[in-house]
């Protein structure tokens, strides 16, 4: 008892002694924000974009009640669609055709479908088939649009394939880079990994697909766990990357399509999306290889680990914006913005490149002054649903964009289809 009392008395004395030394003095508290300026220390998790009330969502493909067997027909009457639960699996082409890769988590039962401009959904490739040959006999891959050649490319299976249109109207799939089903040879024990570059048909690519894009010059970039590859003029080379932070490697987990085109042919965005300090969206300057964080709190540099880091939080991109199990960003040329989203994200947010550097919510959350509307299966399969009512009890995923300002969305809890959001003041359905 005596000892306990002694410790308590000592602690009290120390506390009293410290008080005049300055702890808790009023002048040490952060200054109150200026009138009208946001209180950055108490910023709410959701910061709405000014346009939030202008966005609406239409069902684009699939039907919630049409069952889990896939069949073809009018896009809104099709069952069993199951888009792949990854960002960027909807690829829209300039003529209005939209390609959607569908699969279960992990890649089972992959199929590539096409929604034609007239709204008819057809199967293009299934999960069984050849690597090369007539398109209908080949198995599906992740769709990539080559704007220079106006051609569909397919990524996956350790290779890049190209869909060639034959004069008779048929389509043929051929490998243009990589060796199908042959991953890179592991380095000898203790030796560093060296990418196997060189002639495109002799280079090797990792098995687990992380993302690939094609710019307007027809150059394909292929993201891997240990670097970035460039496929150009029949040759594969590695892009020498310069990390500007202490973590000089990627730490991807769980998701695919973590690579995005940027605002010009020399810029890409890479979503390095999981792990302490690694929840970051990096701008990649292809001329220098420099990687620069453009979004995501760096808790080691900015602190505030527990208040906003690892949460679906809006605000200044580098100091306040974060997400749960990772963050990813994809460039939308129509809006000159990065769509910000993540594996556990309920909201779809953006970071406008010409804006003030804040991440703001556009879709999937209701402004406090708005009343929730009924949002049942009928609304989920209808058109013109206010985007702020488009709320998911699990996750809303960015799936792609089109040249008319449309944003494609898939949902974790309703795996039956694809939705398209748009700003009704900017574009027509």
């Amino acid at each position, binding site marked *: 008892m005596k000892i306990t009392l002694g410790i308590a008395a000592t602690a009290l004395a120390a506390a009293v002694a410290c008080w005049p030394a300055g702890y808790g003095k009023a002048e040490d508290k952060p200054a109150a924000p200026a009138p009208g300026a946001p209180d950055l220390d108490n910023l709410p998790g959701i910061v709405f974009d000014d346009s939030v009330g202008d966005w609406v969502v239409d069902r684009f493909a699939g039907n919630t009640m049409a*069952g889990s067997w896939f069949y073809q027909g009018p896009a809104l009457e099709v069952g069993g669609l199951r888009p792949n639960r990854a960002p960027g699996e909807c690829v829209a082409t300039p003529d209005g055709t939209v390609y959607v890769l569908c699969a279960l*988590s*992990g*890649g089972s039962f992959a199929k590539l479908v096409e929604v034609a401009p007239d709204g008819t959904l057809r199967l*293009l490739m299934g999960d*069984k088939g*050849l690597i090369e040959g007539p*398109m209908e006999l080949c198995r599906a891959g992740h769709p990539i649009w080559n704007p220079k050649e106006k051609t569909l490319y397919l990524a996956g299976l350790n290779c890049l394939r190209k869909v060639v249109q034959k004069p008779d109207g048929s389509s043929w799939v051929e490998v243009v880079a990589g060796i199908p089903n042959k991953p890179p040879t592991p380095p000898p024990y203790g030796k560093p990994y060296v990418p196997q570059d060189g002639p495109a048909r002799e280079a090797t690519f990792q098995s687990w697909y992380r993302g690939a894009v094609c710019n307007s010059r027809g150059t394909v970039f292929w993201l891997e766990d240990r670097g970035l590859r460039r496929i150009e003029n029949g040759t594969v080379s590695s892009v020498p990357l310069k990390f500007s932070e202490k973590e000089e490697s990627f730490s991807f987990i769980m998701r695919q399509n973590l690579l995005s085109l940027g605002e010009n042919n020399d810029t890409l965005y890479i979503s390095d999306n999981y792990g302490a300090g690694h929840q970051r969206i990096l701008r990649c300057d292809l001329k220098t290889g420099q990687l620069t964080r453009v979004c995501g709190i760096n808790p080691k540099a900015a602190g505030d680990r527990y208040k906003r880091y690892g949460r679906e939080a809006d605000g200044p991109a580098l100091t306040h914006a974060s997400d749960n199990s990772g963050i990813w960003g994809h460039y939308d040329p129509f809006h000159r913005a990065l769509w910000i989203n993540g594996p556990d994200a309920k909201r779809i947010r953006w970071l406008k490149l010409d804006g003030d550097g804040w991440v703001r919510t556009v879709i999937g959350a209701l402004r406090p002054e708005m009343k929730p509307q009924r949002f049942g299966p009928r609304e989920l399969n209808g058109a013109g649903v206010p985007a702020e009512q488009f709320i998911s009890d699990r996750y809303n995923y960015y799936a792609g964009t089109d040249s008319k300002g449309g944003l494609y969305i898939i949902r974790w809890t309703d795996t039956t289809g694809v939705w398209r959001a748009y700003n009704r003041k900017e574009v027509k359905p």
Partner: protein
Amino acid sequence: MRPLTTISLAALLCLALLTLPVPAAEAPAAGALKVGDEVVLMADGPGRTMRSFPAVGFGRDLFLAAWQEGWHGKGGGSRIYVARVGLDGKTLDPKGIELAPCKTGVQEYTRVAFFGGVFLVVWHDMRNGKDCDVLAARVSPEGKVLDAQPISVAAGPRTQAMPDVAADDKGFMVVWHGFQGEEVFPKVFSARVGPDGSRGEPVVVTDGATPRIAWNGREHLVIYSMGRHKRWLRMDTSGKALWNPTTRSWSEGVAGDPVCSTCALSSERGWLIVYHGGEPNWWYRSMAIQRVARITPEGKKEAPGDTNGNYGPKGGVPPENWLDTSFGKETQANVGGSAHTPAVFPYGGSALAADGQYCVVVWQRYHMGGASNMEMANGDLLASRLDGWKPLDKGGVPVAASAAEEINPALAGNGAGKLLCAYEKVEDGRARIVVRTLQTQ
């Protein structure tokens, strides 16, 4: 006791234990379910490397296998083919029989039943290039297609798809789902087709999609999907859903993926359904299960245990009605994920048929692999006899378990211990339809 004596006694005890027979309950009942040799149906068909979704019916001492031959996607021309197969498992039509030649569109998802001396084969057909219609054609046991033009079961302006057919005491009952007018969601329809090819008027059965049907000698069971749930109802031969006074409802249901198979036991014992559990996910919180439940003549589900949970069965012991599960099995690290996933994953299609004494089930089980290590990479087929919901061949008897992918089983029985299982076999991206006999008595 001296140490040497102790060691000797222990060695003797071990030897005695090793020579004890394995309890019968732990191993498949040897000889109870014999699997015949594999026979390829039409090796060199027009579908080149693409053929899929077989169906089988039995009548007049032979089986009729039907399947879609060729690519069914854009630019494709898949056609329904049939072949008769004898009780010995040998095909009588090695070149196959094209059921409904057509210059345009694709034909998919065929099903078969037998009544009044003819087989009725139903499928959906996208010959207008825009939406599906439900068509049917009769085939005689002599292998002759009796309808020069297919019977138009449902050819309305919007999608009419995913048909199934059962024979009852009056003829054939066809069910499918379709869209009417401006409706956003599909409804389940039924229509009678006579053995003479006559077609009755379609009747709306219920809201829902992808129906499956089985006749138990008194009533039909229609099992269908409703969003992410499967539901079932009893239906009379006029296509009218039957009210259940016990449960005071028209239908019953259970959560989970609607994919399932069904067959009848008898008017006194009801029906069986086999359905799978969850799909793979990144966190390995989804169990793979293939399981059986009995639907009583009153329409109630009967099974000793069930779960759609993510963490295992209650008490850690799989219930007796589980045919197969990933629970408790070996795991492997998934690539690009954060956890381990099971090395085998029972998932997907199954097929049920009666053999006269028992029902027999054939189900899919996948080996996990691919780039993620959680891709269902190699499907195998296993079988068991069922006494009600109780599997009699614990662990399953391999029907097709080669390095090739063997999936999408279909099954029919002759009611006297002989069954035919048809399935897809995929090797190097090339699919074939193959059959094997199963013998239970």
